[in-house]
């Protein structure tokens, strides 16, 4: 093994039934470097980490893993083996025991034999804590420390286990800015001590604040490894999305230019939910707008707050100028808002129920439990929309779960169109759908908007959003960072806004 390299992964492949999660991925970690692993959700970051840490069901199909100081290939078939070869992981959620002391947490499961010398390990823990500058007492109960300190204790535990490779998986997502800075100091400190750190995060600024090198994955494949100074933030975004900046400039927008009416259909001030920070938002009749940003930037969470899908924690909402309270989906539906969720299988379809039942569900709920839609009427409704949207199904009684993804999506679309909403939210309506159906759905969106419906359209594919939306709200790190309209609606501008700053 080359000098200064602690970990090499070569040609890693991992498949799950129907999905190639990792395809021939290489990764190299050097001594004393902080190496960011970047990619959108589903790019393969987590899978790679799980392969490396021996999580069961994530044993690699192909490829080799080598670690400094170990002859030949490292065998990692369980988290214990990973720890033995010097790979430690600190996860997003703290996986320590809150009711034990800091010292106990640092040594739990590591003592040999039944006898434990409390004095000894408290002394040892105190040394480590002091060494790493972690503001905690060894005898303190862990639950009394702040989240950041708990995270640091987890790191201290990992470091003390003589790890060569420290994996930090989204360590900052529950920390505030000050705590993040403290964590970074600790990371820089460890780096000086020669630990190789793999840093997984979706906060772009944090990558640039602390990392030396970046490896980008996309769709389970390696995009490349870059030195931070050679990869401006906007290019990183482009790479994560699988575009090159030169291509982007040439693409043209063919979408809705104006068309929006004057009347404000939905207006929210400081709306927030358990999953998203307060934001302002409004949409006019016949307008198609979009929320864009990387996966995990908070765009889905924002529209879920509008629909009341998550616990709404505040904000003033007006529908057509009238103040309303929307705290649960039913409230939103009564106010003429529809929502096609991002995860069709989990949140959209009722798989075992028929196409007919799935189509009438939302309308039935709006009408109320005591006014059932008759079988004949339900069949007429379902038939109408199966024809209008060209849903390919054997019959109206076919369980919706046995339809193809595109047709399932159309069924959910039909469900909402049947309620004749004045404002329809579509979160990733074209994900996992063939190209033909995608175009159909885009056309439908524009047609509905022409008829006066307000639509929020979210898609991971920027071209698609540029084609359909007349206004784009750009999000980064769960905050709205920009709003683009008119001539600013270009891929380059979107990328720049997502990346932030002038890099």
């Amino acid at each position: 093994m080359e000098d200064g390299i602690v970990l090499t992964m070569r040609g890693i492949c991992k498949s799950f039934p129907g999905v190639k999660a990792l395809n021939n991925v290489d990764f190299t970690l050097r001594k004393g470097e902080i190496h960011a692993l970047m990619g959108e959700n589903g790019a393969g970051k987590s899978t790679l980490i799980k392969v490396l840490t021996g999580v069961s069901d994530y044993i690699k199909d192909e490829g080799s893993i080598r670690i400094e100081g170990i002859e030949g290939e490292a065998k990692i078939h369980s988290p214990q083996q990973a720890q033995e070869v010097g790979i430690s992981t600190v996860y997003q959620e703290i996986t320590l025991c809150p009711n034990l002391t800091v010292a106990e947490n640092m040594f739990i499961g590591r003592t040999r034999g039944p006898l434990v010398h409390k004095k000894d390990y408290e002394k040892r823990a105190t040394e480590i804590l002091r060494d790493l500058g972690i503001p905690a007492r060894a005898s303190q109960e862990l639950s009394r420390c702040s989240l950041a300190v708990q995270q640091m204790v987890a790191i201290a535990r990992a470091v003390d286990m003589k790890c060569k490779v420290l994996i930090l998986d989204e360590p900052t997502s529950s920390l505030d800015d000050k705590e993040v800075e403290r964590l970074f100091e600790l990371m820089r400190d460890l780096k000086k001590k020669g630990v190789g750190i793999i840093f997984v995060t979706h906060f772009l600024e944090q990558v640039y604040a602390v990392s030396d090198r970046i490896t980008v994955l996309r769709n389970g494949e390696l995009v490349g490894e870059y030195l931070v100074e050679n990869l401006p933030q906007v290019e990183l975004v482009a790479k994560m999305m699988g575009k090159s900046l030169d291509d982007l400039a040439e693409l043209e927008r063919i979408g809705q230019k104006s068309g929006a009416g004057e009347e404000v259909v939905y207006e929210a001030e400081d709306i927030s939910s358990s999953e998203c920070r307060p934001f302002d938002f409004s949409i006019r009749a016949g307008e198609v707008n979009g929320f864009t940003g990387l996966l995990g930037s908070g765009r889905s969470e924002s529209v879920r707050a509008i629909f009341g899908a998550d616990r709404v924690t505040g904000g003033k909402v007006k529908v057509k100028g009238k103040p309303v309270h929307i705290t649960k989906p039913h409230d939103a539906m009564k106010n003429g808002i529809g929502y096609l969720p991002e995860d069709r299988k989990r949140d959209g379809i009722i798989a075992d129920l028929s196409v007919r039942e799935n189509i009438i569900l939302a309308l039935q709920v709006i009408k109320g439990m005591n006014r059932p839609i008759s079988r004949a009427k339900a069949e007429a409704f379902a038939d109408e929309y199966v024809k209008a949207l060209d849903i390919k199904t054997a019959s109206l009684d076919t369980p919706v779960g046995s339809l193809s993804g595109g047709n399932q999506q159309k069924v959910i679309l039909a469900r909402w169109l049947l309620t004749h909403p004045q404002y329809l939210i579509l979160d990733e309506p074209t994900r996992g759908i063939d190209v033909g159906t995608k175009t159909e759905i885009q056309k439908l969106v524009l047609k509905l908007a022409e008829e006066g419906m307000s639509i929020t359209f979210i898609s991971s594919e920027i071209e698609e959003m540029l084609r359909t939306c007349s206004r784009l709200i750009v999000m980064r790190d769960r905050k709205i960072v920009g709003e683009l309209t008119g001539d600013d609606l270009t891929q380059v501008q979107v990328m720049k806004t997502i990346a932030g700053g002038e890099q």
Partner: protein
Amino acid sequence: MNKKKNAASGLRQLLIPLIALGILIVFNLIRDVSFFSVEMRVNNSGNVVLAGNLISIIDTASELAIIAMGMTLVTAACGGQDISVGAVGAISGAVLVKVLQAMGGITALSVVAAFAAATAVTILFKLFNGTLVAVFRIQPMIATLILFSCGRSIAYWINGSATPQLTSPIIDSIGKTIPGIPVPTPVFAVLLVALLLVLIFKFTSLRLYTQSVGINQGAARLNGVNPTVVKLISFVILGVCVSVAALIGVSRLGQLNHKTLLVDIEMDAILAVAIGGNSLAGGKFKLIGSVMGAYIIQMLTTTLYAMNVNPVNIKAYKAIVIIIIVVAGSPVIKNALTSLFKKRRPAKAQTEGVS
């Protein structure tokens, strides 16, 4: 064509109970044709009634069939079962008798009042279960374990250790037969409860709501359905079922014994739901399947009695037959049969599930 297909898919769920019923019938036909003989007989109170094994089966299975219907709904909505039905039934019976005693004599009015009171109390206890399940999201089996273990003690507190006798023609009319009508009254009670549920499903969209919540609670919620309310409703309906079953159980014997009233019925009810082809994990359901399941269980018991099997051993024999029924209805066997079927008729298989 759609309707045909629909009927066929409906039958598929009832395949196992139909086959089980068929086998039981054929077995008894071969064993002893007289098993099926039905005759008119004058009973102890001087009424002309129908008698015979078949009548005994549909009569005796009434409480089970009624509770199985309620259990089907709870199972469908919550993806779990209420194991406290027998114990809460004992409470219901105890309240019934207590109110009857308090009102002095047994009249039509006092029976109605007592039944109303018992039903109200039963619904309250079921709402307790329902709250644990729907609001606190405790596993149904665990949540209902509480009343399963203490329900009969509560029944004991209400009435003491006595086993009060209820002798009245009204009670006999409920638990046995109404003079002039040769069919036992409990059979009508099953029909009545079934009719009530069918009407509820016809005039509300409860079936759609219940199935949606059972199949995909998250999606149901995002479509404006309130899963908590739907689950609570299923427990309320089960409460009514349990109360009716308790009324029949008490009337049948003309006495209340809090130790034996509806004892062990919870397991049979769950079994009836399963034999009826309903998924115990919730979702789609067929009431008729559960009712058939109840009659199958009772027919099995009666057949074993007719074969002079020692009552001590009956449970063991029953267990063997039930293992066979349940395994035959398991997804593994079902899939194996389906693929066998598809191989033989490939052309048909291709037209299904266009994707």
